[in-house]
């Protein structure tokens, strides 16, 4: 590391903030782009599993709430891709890399949504897991990203309430409805436990070293378990892990998540990875003429 890079490192590690036009080490810029791009990709791909249920929402209220939630996620992807673009990688290039499989998106968006129970569980638990990471990003050393995280976290607050509302309504409903929730929780538990990534030590995580992330993976997972396992249990729901418990030191113990599954899924081998990327590719191809007409005329 050069002296200038070392000074920069000490600067960010002591809470220093970086703006778009500031000098930054090549490695910092590269890691930043990769991290933020993956977030943008995840918001954009995360839309697809939920979108199917917009058409099947069983009440007008749920229809409106779910459409608004998915709309927010598209909006988030826009905010995030703008940040990446200002760092030097244009949106169209990000979309190229996403569709070709070169760039990744979070594991949870590679799985199917099978029932209305999934709609509730995703908004309640998957979004909760994501928000824990997102709150930690409010302290990101790269200021433009930290600033959009503020808007993102603010908008996500209704998503969690909506999720909880859907789940509570189902749990207070018929036996079939309760079964929808339990079945969804059972199915989503594995991906949820893998979501925050393997428990690499903070000090070995380049994202943490550069203070792009301000929280280690295991810390995030513990926060999730602490906040949400009690909520799950108080509804009479079970989690498919007999080892899950909080020990005397206040640390949650659990069965080792399947890291092979995580690796396989994020490299595009999840149950719905390919057809969702195909959907994106087709939508993009079909509407290429629109972008040409609209943006070309502007030039």
């Amino acid at each position: 590391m050069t002296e200038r890079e070392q000074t920069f490192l000490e600067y960010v590690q002591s809470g220093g903030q970086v703006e778009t036009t500031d000098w930054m080490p090549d490695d910092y810029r590269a890691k930043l782009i990769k991290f933020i791009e993956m977030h943008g990709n995840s918001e954009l791909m995360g839309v697809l599993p939920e979108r199917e249920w917009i058409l099947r929402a069983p009440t007008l209220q749920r229809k409106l709430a779910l459409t608004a939630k998915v709309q927010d996620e598209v909006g988030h992807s826009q905010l995030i891709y703008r940040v990446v673009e200002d760092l030097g990688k244009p949106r169209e290039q990000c979309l190229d890399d996403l569709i070709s499989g070169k760039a990744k998106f979070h594991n949870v968006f590679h799985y199917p949504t099978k029932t209305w129970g999934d709609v509730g569980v995703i908004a309640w638990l998957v979004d909760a897991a994501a928000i824990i990471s997102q709150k930690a990003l409010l302290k990101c050393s790269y200021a433009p990203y930290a600033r959009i995280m503020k808007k993102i976290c603010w908008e996500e607050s209704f998503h969690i309430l909506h999720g909880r509302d859907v789940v509570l309504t189902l749990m207070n409903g018929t036996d079939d409805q309760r079964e929808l929730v339990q079945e969804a929780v059972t199915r989503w538990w594995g991906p949820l436990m893998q979501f925050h990534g393997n428990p690499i030590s903070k000090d070995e995580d380049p994202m943490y070293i550069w203070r792009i992330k301000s929280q280690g993976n295991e810390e995030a997972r513990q926060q999730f378990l602490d906040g949400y396992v009690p909520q799950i249990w108080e509804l009479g729901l079970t989690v498919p892990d007999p080892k899950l418990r909080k020990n005397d030191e206040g640390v949650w113990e659990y069965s080792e998540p399947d890291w092979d599954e995580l690796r396989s899924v994020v490299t595009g081998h999840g149950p719905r990875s390919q057809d969702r990327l195909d959907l994106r590719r087709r939508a993009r191809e079909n509407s290429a003429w629109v972008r040409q007409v609209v943006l070309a005329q502007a030039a």
Partner: protein
Amino acid sequence: MIYEVFRQERKGQPFQHAGSLEAANHEFAESYAKEFYGRRGESEALWVVPREAIIEVEDFVDELNRNYHRVDGYSLKGKLKEARERVGRALVARDR
């Protein structure tokens, strides 16, 4: 074209930079800004500006520490103490 959006949260408050968006022209930019920064009624008003219209200023020079027109250029404690003591001695002298 990239547009920057500034938003005012409530009447009387300053406009603050909120984000940026891509739009073909001013009409689309206005429409999109309203959506992104106002669909929940969260903004009192917005200023939408093409990025190229913004002049960035960052280089401020003050090599000779021009603190004569700043509060930190004035330290009155010593002088005030001296002035109060002088009045104290004068009062004591008068009362004798």
